[in-house]
């Protein structure tokens, strides 16, 4: 939507998604419910079903461009791949392994169970991320915070969340300008200069933000803030269509559970 904030990856989709109209609490319950189901069920079938259904909701129904969706999925990939590797590869004597190689004084090896656990965990992680994406790619931060209010998170924390969310973008915009200005003065000409420039930018960003904080408070107070900020929350009706998708997911889950259970 805009050139700034490229490093803040998911935010812009939450304002564009066709799922934005959905009832916020329902959406969060749906997403977190699926998330908990995936990790509690701990089953390949449930993970796979959830992964595909959540992708269908975000991309198919929510109209998030598929290419962007997979690009976002790559973000947690570093951790998931490394973590997966650590689970798959065992060391020790390595009896009954599929593959074994000497490594210093010990052996690295992969067993059938470690391989299947690794693949299983990787699938589960991607599935859980897709469930999280259902919420994050369709719910603007202000609405997520409104759900926290409903579950009685202290007002002080809510207020901090609102302000931090806003300030994140102000600071990152400022930093983009800092980077351009420093770059134009050859601040990134070599590595040592770059590191010095980078830390100089951050120090200045901190000072600037601390100095601005007072003006920001004044502006809030001038608009009637009395130590307990109230924020507008949109009312989003729960429709039959939204419930239908939830029902569909539950039906598929039930089917998958039956299959898993019958197989033993």
């Amino acid at each position: 939507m805009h050139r700034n904030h490229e490093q803040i990856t998911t935010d812009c989709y939450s304002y564009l998604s066709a799922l934005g109209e959905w009832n916020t609490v329902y959406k969060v319950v749906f997403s977190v419910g699926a998330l908990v189901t995936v990790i509690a069920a701990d089953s390949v079938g449930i993970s796979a079903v959830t992964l595909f259904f959540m992708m269908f909701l975000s991309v198919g129904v929510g109209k998030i461009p598929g290419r962007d969706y997979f690009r976002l999925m790559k973000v947690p990939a570093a951790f998931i791949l490394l973590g997966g590797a650590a689970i798959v590869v065992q060391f020790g004597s390595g009896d009954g392994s599929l593959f074994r190689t000497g490594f210093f004084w010990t052996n690295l090896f992969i067993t059938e169970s470690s391989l299947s656990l690794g693949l299983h965990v990787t699938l589960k992680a991607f599935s859980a991320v897709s469930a999280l994406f259902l919420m994050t790619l369709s719910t603007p931060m202000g609405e997520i915070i409104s759900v926290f209010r409903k579950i009685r998170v202290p007002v002080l924390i809510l207020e901090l969340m609102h302000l931090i969310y806003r300030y994140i973008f102000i600071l990152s915009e400022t930093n983009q300008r800092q980077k351009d200005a420093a770059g134009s003065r050859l601040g990134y000409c070599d590595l040592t200069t770059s590191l010095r420039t980078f830390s100089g930018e951050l120090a200045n960003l901190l000072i600037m933000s601390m100095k601005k904080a007072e003006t920001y408070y004044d502006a809030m107070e001038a608009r009637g803030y009395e130590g307990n900020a109230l924020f507008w929350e949109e009312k989003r009706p729960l429709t039959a269509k939204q419930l239908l998708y939830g029902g569909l997911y539950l039906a598929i889950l039930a089917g998958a559970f039956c299959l898993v259970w019958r197989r033993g």
Partner: protein
Amino acid sequence: MTTKQKKLIGSVAALSVVLGVTPNAYAMHIMEGYLAPQYCIAWGVLCIPFLVTGYLSINKKLKENRKNITLLAMAGAFIFVISSLKIPSVTGSCSHMTGTGLGAILFGPSAVSILGIIVLLFQAILLAHGGLTTLGANTFSMAIAGPLLSYGIFRLCKKLNINQYFGIFLAAFLGDLFTYCVTSVQLAIAYPSAQGGIMASAVKFLGVFAPTQLPLAVLEGILTVLIMIALKTY
């Protein structure tokens, strides 16, 4: 070249390929879906006393002066932003600071616990780093354990009259390192090895993340010192 060396080089090469494939080396956030429910809950519960202490200290600060709310929020946003910025590098790979050490030194460990959990939540929501169910575990390692150790070392070095900047370096470096160790142990508890159990598994997780995390910890230490020097002159 012995076969051992070959294998070592091979595994290092394999790792760098993995690192090359993965565009972003963030600090150690345990990803969504990685922990079973009992661990999610256990780590969450373990955070509660620290978070309550943090909440009370923030609350007291605000009672003294209501205007601190925007300052605190700025501090939180600042921690988020430094953790989302790419550290300049020649190789083109990107890495990010954790900001835990700097945050603890600047704002104190109790405020950082609350700001930290908010920042971690935002990282999960806005950057797809970490997750909701793993929030407890991540908060414990990155917003509580790391900052507490950093702050402790920072104070200790001050008391022992160790060179101030060396103290800051140690605080940030060890805080980062500690975070990475705690995360590895958290993962090991969730995924113990068939042979050797949790200990062996912890060694594996430490080993697998070492190539990204060790240089990052050193860089974090250096950058924290540079930032503190720049701030000191004000």
